[in-house]
């Protein structure tokens, strides 16, 4: 066949295209995401053009303003009825604007603001060569221990890129729970994952550990993403579409129309089941459910603590949001297939996290396993498959994210010569030396343990109640047993802090700037308010608990 014949085949196969229709984009309803992503791009420009001395201030200012503006936009949308009556699907079917999306976006943005505060903390480490330093490496690209690293430290470099990276991550997280087709879901996943991998690598102290954590996180994350992507392909093969609504209708059998190119595969249930399982697996990786949790302790421990706090809170919120939407909007017709499997996952996650946490000796690893156990508790609410299940998960995520950021912020305060003193033995007697800090940490631990009058109790009660009413009583029994096991290691830390003799060479508690104080203070306040008077917020979550289809 000659070249011209080939050419004519190409030209005859496709009609010449006159014009591509411009997509309809509802900028107003997408504004929270657009503001954050726009600010992130601006942040990159700041890195390029603003003098080194002023970058820190410019970046902090830009980040806080952008996140606050985005939060205001979320509130505006919610007040405008987009969470309830006016909720809908925008951007050509790619993004949903509804109650759960706005609620979770608001939570992520608040977590982001507190995250920026902890990122911007510069009073904890002693000044290096007269320059105030934060938790991040002077120059991430320099080899640890090399001359170039020393030079960078001496020159007073700081990695202010962390702020735009955080903004990109937040941007991806905002889309993730709102994504209404599988491709948007995947892109959002990558948009927030990649900046997090980088952020994990830039610790100022223990740089090798930090880089190891980042590499592990990246490798395993990429592995999980591959599963997700393959699952998306299989689902497309099954339904002939990546749109949530269309897939759901094919599952229900209300769409009979078969795309000719996919005639061989459409409606093949094996594709549906395998594809759904693989996509769900990618999300379970992000929430840290057993057996996809193994990255969690290593990454939480290695990453700079402010990054750990932000990541532990916001990633979980975003990933559970996406999981909820996937299970409630795309796969409700399949719930008799996925519910028993998720039962099993929830049970091993709760028990696994709680049991392994017992023997941890590092406070960050302890909190990592605690976060695994909490992922199990939240899964119990997801399994309820009732409107109460959605709202209880929303409430739990909101409560949990503030406790988490606050707890990790406290971890940054307890320091010795080697930086943060994360080994538990060093926390002995902290209550005698710094009663206030120890008391605050005790509040967070009690909230993790789910003791009444803290937000942890209200959240746990809500998800267990929803699960029990949704017919998952067995999960609740396991959940309560796991809570009992988990209470052991939370209380053990409290006992260690208040009832052990302080060590002579023990760590000191650094006095933070108002930034970290604000993060911790907001964490404590939210924990207590949601614990003492949760009803308003439970109502809010329950109003926001309806997905648009």
């Amino acid at each position, binding site marked *: 066949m000659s070249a011209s014949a080939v050419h004519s085949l190409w030209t005859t196969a496709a009609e010449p295209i006159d014009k591509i229709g411009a997509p309809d984009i509802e900028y107003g309803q997408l504004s929270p995401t657009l503001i954050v992503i726009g600010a992130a791009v601006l942040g990159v420009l700041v890195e390029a053009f603003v003098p080194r001395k002023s970058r820190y201030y410019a970046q902090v200012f830009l980040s806080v303003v952008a996140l606050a503006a985005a939060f205001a936009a979320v509130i505006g949308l919610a007040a405008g009825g987009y969470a309830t009556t006016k909720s809908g699907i925008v951007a050509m079917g790619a993004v949903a604007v509804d109650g759960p999306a706005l609620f979770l976006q608001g939570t992520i943005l608040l977590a982001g603001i507190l995250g920026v505060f902890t990122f911007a903390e510069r009073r904890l480490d002693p000044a290096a060569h007269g320059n105030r330093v934060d938790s991040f490496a002077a120059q991430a690209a320099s080899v640890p221990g090399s001359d170039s690293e020393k030079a960078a430290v001496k020159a007073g470099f700081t990695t202010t890129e962390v702020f735009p990276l955080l903004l990109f991550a937040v941007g991806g997280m905002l889309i993730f729970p709102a994504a209404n087709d599988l491709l948007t879901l995947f892109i959002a996943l990558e948009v927030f994952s990649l900046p997090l991998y980088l952020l994990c690598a830039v610790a100022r102290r223990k740089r090798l550990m930090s880089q190891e954590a980042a590499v592990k996180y990246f490798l395993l994350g990429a592995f999980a993403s591959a599963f997700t992507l393959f699952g998306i392909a299989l689902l497309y093969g099954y339904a002939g579409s990546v749109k949530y609504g269309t897939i759901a209708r094919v599952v229900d059998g209300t769409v009979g129309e078969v795309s000719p190119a996919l005639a061989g595969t459409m409606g093949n249930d094996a594709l549906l089941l395998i594809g759904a399982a693989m996509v769900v697996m990618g999300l379970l990786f992000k929430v840290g459910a057993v057996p996809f949790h193994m990255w969690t302790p290593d990454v939480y421990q290695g990453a700079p603590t402010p990054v750990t706090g932000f990541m532990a809170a916001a990633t979980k919120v975003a990933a559970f949001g996406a999981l909820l939407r996937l299970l409630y909007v795309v796969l409700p017709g399949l719930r008799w*297939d996925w519910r028993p499997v998720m039962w099993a996952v929830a049970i091993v996650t709760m028990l696994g996290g709680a049991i392994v946490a017992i023997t941890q000796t590092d406070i960050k690893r302890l909190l990592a396993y605690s976060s695994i156990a909490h992922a199990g508790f939240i899964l119990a609410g997801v399994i309820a498959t009732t409107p109460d299940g959605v709202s209880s998960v929303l409430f739990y995520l909101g409560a949990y994210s503030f406790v988490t950021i606050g707890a990790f912020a406290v971890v940054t305060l307890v320091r010795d010569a080697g930086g943060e003193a994360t080994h538990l033995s060093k926390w002995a007697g902290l209550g005698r030396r710094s009663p206030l800090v120890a008391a605050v940490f005790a509040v967070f631990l009690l909230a993790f343990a789910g003791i009444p009058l803290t937000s942890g109790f209200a959240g746990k009660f809500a998800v267990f109640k929803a699960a029990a009413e949704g017919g998952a009583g067995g999960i609740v029994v396991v959940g309560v047993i796991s809570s009992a096991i988990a209470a052991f290691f939370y209380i053990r830390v409290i006992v260690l802090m208040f009832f052990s003799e302080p060590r002579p060479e023990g760590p000191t508690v650094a006095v933070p700037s108002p930034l970290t104080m604000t993060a911790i203070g907001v964490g404590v306040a939210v924990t207590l308010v949601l614990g003492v008077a949760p009803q308003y917020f439970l109502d809010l979550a329950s109003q926001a608990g309806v997905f648009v289809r």
Partner: protein
Amino acid sequence: MENLIALLIAAPLLGAAVLLCGGRRLDAVGHWIGTVLAAASFVVGVVLFADMLGKDPENRAMHQFLFSWIPVGGFQADVAFQLDQLSMTFVLLITGVGSLIHVYSIGYMEHDERRRRFFGYLNLFLAAMLLLVLADNYLLLYVGWEGVGLASYLLIGFWQHKPSAATAAKKAFLVNRVGDVGLSIAIMLMFTTFGTFAFGPVLEATGEATEGKLTAIGLMLLLAACGKSAQVPLQSWLGDAMEGPTPVSALIHAATMVTAGVYLIVRSADIFNAAPDAQLVTTVVGAVTLLFGAIVGCAKDDIKKALAGSTMSQIGYMVLAAGLGPIGYVFAIMHLVTHGFFKAGLFLGAGSVMHGMNDEVDMRKYGGLRTYMPITFITFGLGYLAIIGFPGLSGFFSKDKIIEAAFAKGGTEGWILGGVALLGAAITAFYMTRVMLMTFFGEERWRNQPTASPAEPDVEPAAEHHGAAASDHVAAATGEPHPHESPRVMTIPMIVLAVGSVFAGGFFSIGDRFIHWLEPVTGHAHGHPPIGAAAVTASTVAVMVLGVGLAWLQYGRRPVPVVAPRGSLLTRAARRDLYQDDFNHVVLVRGGEHLTRSLVYVDHTLVDGVVNGTAAGMGGLSGRLRRIQNGYARSYAVSMFGGAAILIAATLLMRAV
């Protein structure tokens, strides 16, 4: 008018608050504040009584709603009062006798440093007791019930420097707790059965409940009554309660608080009427106690303990009458009121004797006191005649009616109960005559007798160091006593009570006044004893004469030895309160110790073993699982891959199944 009801309680409650919080600056006037407020409550009671008399007998009950106390869903508890004829009777008795005893205490406690506090406790007792009888529901009654228990505890142990008083207070409190548990269970049963515990709804709804439930409630109420009213098997605390100052014994442990159990049973008449088994147990408890108390009273040489046995026995009569149902309720309350007069009078008389005898309580060291303290002798003597049922005096009317009602119960039960009541009357006459003879007649055994010597194994050393002894008789405290009449502030209340002892019974009985008064509340049925009412009365008088005669033979004709003889087996048993404490010690204390020890053993080995074993197991599991986390990304990836494979396989499997 209804709004005055709360004032009845408020006055003594205010007194208690002022006296107990006021501190030392009120020491000089504290007793007057307490007495005036008690009297004020009495005046309010009289006003309400006058108002009540002006009304139609069927519509005399008044209600006052104060506030909603515990409004929780279906659980509604109000602070609300009900003043009907039954409550009114108690209000007048409590505030009337209470006021008299306040006056008496001014003299009796004159030299006690803590007199202000004493009056504060007395006022607290009045408030709690009034709350008990005025509450319109069982839960609020329970508050008063516990309140009088607290006041009783505080007053028995008022001289807390004496270990015996502190122990007695604790004992009274603990034994009462057993009864209190009964009351709380009864209230819970009422709530589950009727959904409420207000008197009106509960008592109206008794027809809807099964007899089994009502019997259970009735028995629990009876348990409560046994605790508060010192009935067998919870009688052991009353004798020791005599460690308290004598006015306390008169007011709380004779006239008012110990009769709360009778009030409870009569108030719950509808429940007991519908539960014959509970009624039968009630009569048995009453009959056993009336003999028990009487026998104990015969052997005691301590004047207050002899009177305490008598109190137990007389309340046994009331409980017996209350257990007889509608033929007995009215007489139970009537005997309660007359007993309130004469027993309070007897105790005040005993206090007066002790006052003049350096606080000696051993009657073997009294004798011939009638000439030294004539007013005490006369008032005590009138009380004595009333309690033994001398014709025409108060006790005669009320006790005779109970004995008649017991016979009228009918059948073998009637004969047994009536016989026991009759026998009790004989013993009553015996032991009261004994007290009378040993105290006021015979030779003056206190001559050349230094008092307060611990001669008796069963009599507590007379260590009641109240103020009078401490100052008036410092010189005489170790030597021979100088008996003398008490001051007027003490004798006047005794005189008033003696008047009541003489005339109250007759006043109540003429024209069946008391029956008509109470009938709208408790109901009344006329009982007809099989041998005829006149025969019963005649036998009562006959056995009374018999008892007096026997006592005269033993204590009047022959000199009373100063040191108690060894006595018969029964006497020795009675001196030890028929071994009630020994029984409690062996069965309850030892048994309880064994039970707790075995429970502790089970707790240590089994429960702790399971708990520690679980914890150790979890720790071991944790250590093993932890090793999976080896730090190699490749192992993590394998875990994820395996997990994904299982996830997919499980999902497919679910569909296949």
